[in-house]
């Protein structure tokens, strides 16, 4: 394959990873190639709609095509569409943003959210990816996997130089999650309070998790919240739908070996 097409993808990923619009010089410096080469790549990307000019300047941001591809990817997870009304119920019942995280190999991807009325900060974007050992939604999924999966996850993480917690500590945390029936995570801006996530299973290991992202729980006594049963009931309504037709809700990448899915 010609290196110029490969290079276009690298340029695209630079633009995609940046939090501000990027110019050709800046991209060239990061990739170690000349600004002229970058410019030709950007031109091809712009014509195909993968990047666009930021306010008619010479700086670039991601274009519409990328948004369409991402939305298409989220739509491949059939669980998303049936979850939407239940996310809204949870957001209404808790006042906090409720979100859906699906499993992708050893990662969790947040693909849908219903904003809560108490939300004051902007929540993470749709498509945000976290390792399965990070964050309550991902951990709720990890805790539901077969025994031995945690060790496989940790081994994969070490192979690919991902930040991994100590295996014993992680196993202990996952045991807590199984005992409570939900995972918790301390939230920014609210010390001593925690968000929570329930795994969503079709009988076996979880295909997804539903999180209430606000600081609803007392981190020291997560079990004590009087509305836990109500929230759990809403999540169980989704589970009953999944259990009725599990094949319908299989993930689009379930046929891949999780070890083969590696994101930078």
């Amino acid at each position: 394959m010609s290196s110029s097409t490969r290079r276009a993808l690298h340029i695209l990923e630079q633009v995609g990873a940046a939090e501000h619009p990027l110019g050709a010089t800046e991209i060239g410096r990061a990739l170690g190639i000349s600004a002229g080469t970058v410019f030709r790549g950007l031109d091809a990307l712009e014509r195909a709609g993968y990047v666009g000019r930021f306010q008619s300047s010479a700086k670039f941001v991601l274009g519409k095509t990328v948004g369409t591809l991402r939305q298409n990817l989220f739509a491949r997870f059939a669980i998303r569409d049936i979850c939407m009304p239940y996310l809204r119920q949870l957001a209404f019942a808790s006042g906090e943003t409720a979100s859906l995280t699906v499993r992708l190999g050893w990662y969790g991807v947040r693909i849908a959210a219903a904003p809560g009325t108490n939300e004051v900060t902007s929540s993470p974007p749709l498509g945000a990816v976290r390792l399965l050992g990070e964050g309550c939604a991902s951990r709720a999924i990890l805790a539901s996997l077969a025994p031995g999966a945690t060790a496989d996850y940790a081994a994969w993480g070490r192979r690919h130089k991902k930040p991994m917690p100590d295996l014993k500590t992680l196993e202990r945390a996952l045991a807590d999650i199984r005992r409570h029936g939900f995972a918790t995570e301390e939230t920014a801006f609210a010390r001593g309070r925690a968000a929570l996530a329930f795994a969503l299973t079709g009988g076996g290991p979880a295909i997804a998790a539903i999180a209430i992202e606000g600081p609803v729980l007392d981190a020291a006594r997560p079990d004590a919240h009087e509305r836990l049963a109500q929230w759990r009931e809403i999540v169980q309504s989704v589970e009953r739908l999944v259990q009725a037709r599990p094949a319908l809700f299989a993930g689009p990448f379930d046929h891949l070996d999780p070890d083969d899915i590696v994101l930078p």
Partner: protein
Amino acid sequence: MLAVLSCFCGADRSLGVTELAQRLGMNKNMVHRALTTLAADGYVVRDPGGARYQLGYRVLVLRGDADEFDIRALCRPALEELHGLTGESVFLSIIVGRSRVNVDWIEARGRRVSASQRGRSVPLHCTTMSRALLAYLDDREIADYLASAAPLTRYDAIFPETANATAQDVWRDIAAMRRDGSITWRNPQQYGANYIAFPVLDASDRPHALITVGGPRERFGPQRIAELMPRMRAILQPLQQHCRHVLAAPVIIEGS
């Protein structure tokens, strides 16, 4: 290669080499090489059958800030296009609490419908523009709202165009909006202006926002609106489609 990846923007769950080659007018060898490059990074993956390709997970690394759902930024290009097409004033409105608030607008030149109500919040039952948003709450919410709202006639002096409205009038507007996916009305105050409003909804038809075009009757009469309708719909369709993927912000009607 980018053209190959772009083929996965459509509704097809998976695509085969032959199919892609036909669609792009490329030979199979070229398509195959492009797929190999794309597959090496996970931009595409083989489907469970192994013979065809599906969209891969690698697009997740292309984050930028494209996914931030800022309704004003998202709708701005459509407002500009609608203004360019019609030459009239356009408005973007959202629900805040129990009211409609205009959060963006472009004013036409000369004799025009003005944004006199900048940032002012207007109760959801006053003016047709407000009711066009109210229409996308559910019937129970609307009934609760109307039961606890100020008497429908209280604001008649401020909104003479909907003076003496009854709950029945409100429900009639709601039914029209839901049936047609748009609503037109006339405001005798502003040069007998005509308006047309379109909703921006989520997947369960909850309201994100309302986009309204309004102009003096001599320029923007019912006939002109009918002529422009297909083009206005074409401008709004991609925006409306995009917004369906994101849940609308919650609306709290109770507790007045």
